[in-house]
């Protein structure tokens, strides 16, 4: 359990948000509510690139003079290195602006505690009766041929999971738009059971529609009344294999702890 206690500081969680997907910002708000209820910060806020409050609107809302800023993003990249610092006018790990001290933490997806969260998320999807020793775990990312960074965070988590305390029969990475493709899951795994965890910060069209079709658990993209319905039909029996499919890792309530871990790590790294 995290021991962050900063009643004089504010926490600002940054999300991408969406002008089209109503569920995109939900995990940020959920984690903010969880952390707010813990009472470890003076106030907890969210700001978004594509929703409100925007990164540019947020400052009048924050009354504390010290702010910890945690990007709820999966990896270091274009957003965390370029867009967020530019929009929030951050000049380094700590930015002094007028009488405010703004601490820019690393994104949640890069924290080592994500590994444990991924393992626990997979175990929860499978249920208690399924042994990890008989199960292949696939972490699925977006992947793109345009950038190596997209897959980097997934690969490093897969490496860590292979050496982790939960003895999965296999741990593999797979992607929607680059090899190894998630659509080849059956060829890439040999265990009787397979559990698939999307490495995304929120559920959206990829986790509701694209990946289920690529896995073969939905015949075609469907606009179900509740998109979350797709996670309620586990397990799926496909060609003699048993497949479990879970919601994006960013929707796991324990991600709130990872946000606090990034704050604690910032203090450790910069001696605060």
């Amino acid at each position: 359990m995290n021991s962050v206690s900063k009643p004089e500081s504010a926490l600002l969680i940054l999300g991408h948000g969406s002008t089209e997907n109503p569920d995109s910002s939900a995990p940020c708000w959920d984690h903010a509510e969880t952390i707010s209820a813990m009472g470890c910060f003076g106030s907890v806020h969210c700001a978004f690139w594509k929703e409100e409050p925007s990164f540019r609107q947020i400052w009048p809302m924050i009354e504390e003079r010290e702010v910890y800023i945690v990007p709820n993003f999966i990896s270091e990249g274009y957003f965390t290195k370029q867009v967020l610092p530019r929009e929030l006018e951050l000049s380094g790990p700590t930015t002094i602006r007028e009488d405010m001290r703004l601490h820019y933490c690393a994104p949640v997806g890069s924290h080592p505690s994500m590994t444990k969260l991924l393992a626990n998320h997979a175990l929860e999807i499978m249920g208690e009766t399924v042994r990890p020793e008989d199960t292949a775990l696939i972490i699925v990312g977006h992947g793109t041929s345009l950038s190596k960074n997209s897959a980097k965070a997934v690969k490093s988590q897969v490496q860590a999971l292979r050496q982790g305390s939960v003895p999965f029969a296999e741990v593999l990475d797979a992607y929607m738009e680059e090899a190894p493709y998630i659509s080849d899951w059956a060829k890439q795994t040999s265990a009787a059971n397979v559990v698939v965890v999307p490495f995304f910060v929120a559920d959206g069209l990829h986790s509701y529609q694209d990946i289920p079709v690529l896995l073969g658990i939905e015949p075609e993209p469907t606009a179900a009344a509740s998109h979350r319905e797709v996670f309620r039909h586990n397990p799926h029996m496909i060609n003699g294999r048993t497949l479990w499919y879970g919601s994006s890792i960013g929707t796991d309530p324990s991600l709130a702890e990872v946000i606090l871990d990034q704050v604690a790590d910032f203090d450790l790294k910069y001696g605060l």
Partner: protein
Amino acid sequence: MTLEETLAALLPIGKKLGFGELHLRRTEDALFTAHHREDANEPNLHSLDSARELREWAKYDDEGAFRPLKTAPNLRKGWITRTPEAQEFLSRLDAIYPGLFATWVAYTQERLRIVPLRETLKRQSGMYRISAKISTERVEQIRKEFCARNCLRTILWPSEEGSAHDPFVPEKIDEIPLLCSEACTLAINHARVLALEESLTKTH
């Protein structure tokens, strides 16, 4: 004075205020209440008792379409929220109109940074970089057509750099205005579309 204290001071017992499509008031039993302006005489309003419930309510319009812009003129009716706490009331108002009470307070204290549209567009990168190439004529089109049609906020930003921002002149008393200090993501996206159109026209 904190934001919470400012809100409480603006709403003494018996006071009524407008805020976008909202009607705010403090009842005789000291409850802060808010509901849709057009529900003033509606006896059967559904009670929404948390910021979470209100955020979910404001997420969709009457047809069930997602409302990414919270100041779009289509907030659903039929609800009321009540709380004795100013801090909680502020959180609930932020769920409907994120940050806009704080924006107004910052404006009154001359702390609000107003950013010309051209400066916002010049800052963009990636797929939005082209938006900076938009002509002055088209820039005006964003404000007059796109923003005016789709949003209830009063624009404070000038279109071009070096111009003074529009002074805000309140039209009504007892009204907290919805102010826009910088173009939002939807306006930037619209600028991108117009800039792409312009570049295609020049090519042909």
